[in-house]
């Protein structure tokens, strides 16, 4: 008779799998996760889901209230803004701009930060000290200030502010990776692979990274909620996405003077930002909880 298992093999789930297993058990975190996934899918497929063109104005339906209002129209479910553009379509398109771009921004700064952080963890002495001080300087300059400088140099625009946000997020990733790698390198299992003759880079790749990935993912959720707020605030201040683009912060700003006549044009983008940041924070909170649960067991 054939035997499936030749050896009495025990399978250990990888740290990431264990994390997911613990994560699934918190209901609130899963709600946040579904919300997050919803936004992510919406951000990718937004051009297909939009009922109207988000940037095309339609003078016949200026400032239409949402559909549940008596004067509303069902084909403009969330009403229209001062140029007759459909709010729902603008919000959906805004998901790509605010939420989708924040995701990309975080990925870019994560990659750069993790590479620089692991390199810095491998250096020692005065070089590492200078490096840390330099990071401290950048860390203590607020994002908005950094963005203002970059906008002053390059001029306003969504792309320029995105670079500002990338630059301001990188130091946090470097910091986290640096400390985590340092901590892992002092552990015995790393010594074991070193005695086997593994080079530092190999140890990083096969031994250290799988064990610190949860810290990095955790930092990524924090960074993303900050990135969403930053993109929206810069849009609101007029430095980020420029007016026809339906970025949530820009939308909020462009209809600000209609706050009392058409409050939905201000409520809805704000709610969208709140929802996006909230789901991201819930996912982050769930991750931290899962890590804690695993450490306790």
């Amino acid at each position, binding site marked *: 008779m054939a035997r499936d298992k030749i050896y009495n093999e025990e399978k250990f789930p990888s740290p990431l799998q264990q994390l997911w297993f613990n994560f699934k058990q918190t209901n609130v975190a899963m709600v946040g996760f579904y919300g997050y996934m919803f936004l992510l899918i919406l951000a990718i497929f937004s051009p297909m889901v939009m009922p109207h063109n988000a940037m095309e104005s339609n003078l016949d339906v200026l400032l239409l209230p949402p559909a549940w209002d008596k004067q509303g129209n069902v084909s403009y479910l969330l009403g229209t803004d001062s140029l007759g553009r459909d709010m729902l379509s603008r919000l959906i398109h805004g998901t790509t701009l605010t939420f989708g771009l924040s995701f990309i921004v975080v990925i870019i700064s994560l990659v750069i930060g993790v590479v620089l952080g692991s390199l810095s963890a491998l250096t020692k002495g005065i070089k590492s000290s200078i490096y840390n001080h330099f990071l401290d300087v950048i860390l203590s300059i607020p994002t908005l*200030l950094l963005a203002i400088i970059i906008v002053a*140099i390059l001029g306003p625009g969504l792309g320029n502010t995105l670079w500002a946000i990338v630059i301001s997020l990188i130091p946090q990733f470097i910091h986290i990776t640096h400390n985590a790698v340092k901590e892992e390198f002092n552990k015995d299992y790393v010594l074991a692979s070193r005695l086997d003759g593994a080079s530092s880079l190999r140890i990083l790749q096969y031994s250290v990274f799988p064990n610190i990935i949860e810290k990095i993912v955790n930092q990524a959720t924090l960074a993303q909620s900050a990135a969403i707020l930053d993109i929206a605030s810069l849009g609101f201040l007029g430095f980020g996405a420029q007016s026809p683009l339906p970025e949530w912060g820009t939308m909020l700003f462009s209809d600000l003077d209609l706050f009392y006549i058409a409050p939905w044009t201000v409520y809805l983008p704000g709610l969208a930002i709140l929802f996006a940041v909230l789901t991201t924070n819930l996912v982050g909170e769930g991750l931290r909880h899962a890590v804690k649960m695993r450490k306790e067991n």
Partner: protein
Amino acid sequence: MLMFTLRRLSLFFFTMVLLSMLTFSLRYFFPGDMLINLSGQINANTAELKQLAIDYKIHESIFSQYWQYLTNIFHGNLGLSMASQLPISTEISTLLPATIELSIIALTIAMVMGIPLGFIAAIYHRKKIDNIILTFAIVGHSFPVFWLGLLVILIFSIQLAWFPSAGDISLLFEIPQQTGFLFIDILLSNSPYKWQAFNSALAHIFLPASVVALAPATVFIRLARTSMMEVLETSYIQAAKTKGLSFIQIIYHHAIRNALIKMIRHIGLQFANLITFVMITEVIFSWPGIGRWLIVSIGQRDYTAIQNGLLVLSIFIFVVHIFTDFIYAALNPLAREHNHGS
């Protein structure tokens, strides 16, 4: 403590040098004529420009340019604002105090609200109160500050008309400027309407300060909760319990003090974030502070203002960092010296 002070001061010096290099290098990146950007004299003629080039040592080596830059900073000679043609140093001396006032009051509100709530949540860990406070913390942390500011203005200034929505004091009061800090100036002035003015200033600062305070308060809730939970699990709390102290005695005499010390360090780290919120809130509430001035300067392409505003705000943040570090070390002997035997 001496070693600690020296180490911190050298760190401060080092960061200041780095920061000044950063702001110095900005002159090569800003668009337009470097000399005009530096001096802010947009209407200078050829002879004046020549004199400026000599003053700023533009044609000499980069090191003497940098040295000249530092000398100018120490002499308070920061050039003119390109938009208003007033010296930057006078502008900053009137604007920075307003920002400091707003940020300190916001920080105080955030601490007074956040830390006790965090402690309560930790004491009732995994009970209903804990859940309610945590939910509040997560939702409050997710609020975009500019939206919150708009909603607060709509509700409290326009619909309820409880608080004014713009500026730092009613225009009816004439307060001579002495220190630049409005509250101190009001108390120093000998106007017969001193207390009315004080009330007006209080009413004006309440809304912006609360808006700024919300997000940091939620961070403090989380930090206070964690540090209190850590303290409650330590062995000295266990020892106090076995000695038969009541729960309230333990919390008041042992837990709160030790948990508070851990908090102080995080306050400095939160400060950079708080300044971001202050800058946005200043725009919404038309607060006459440095953040709003900087944001307006972008629209006016006022490069002199941007360069110096960055320097001043960053120095302010650093000073608060170092200051909280010192308070932490003064209160906590474990932070200033190495543990014996470890």
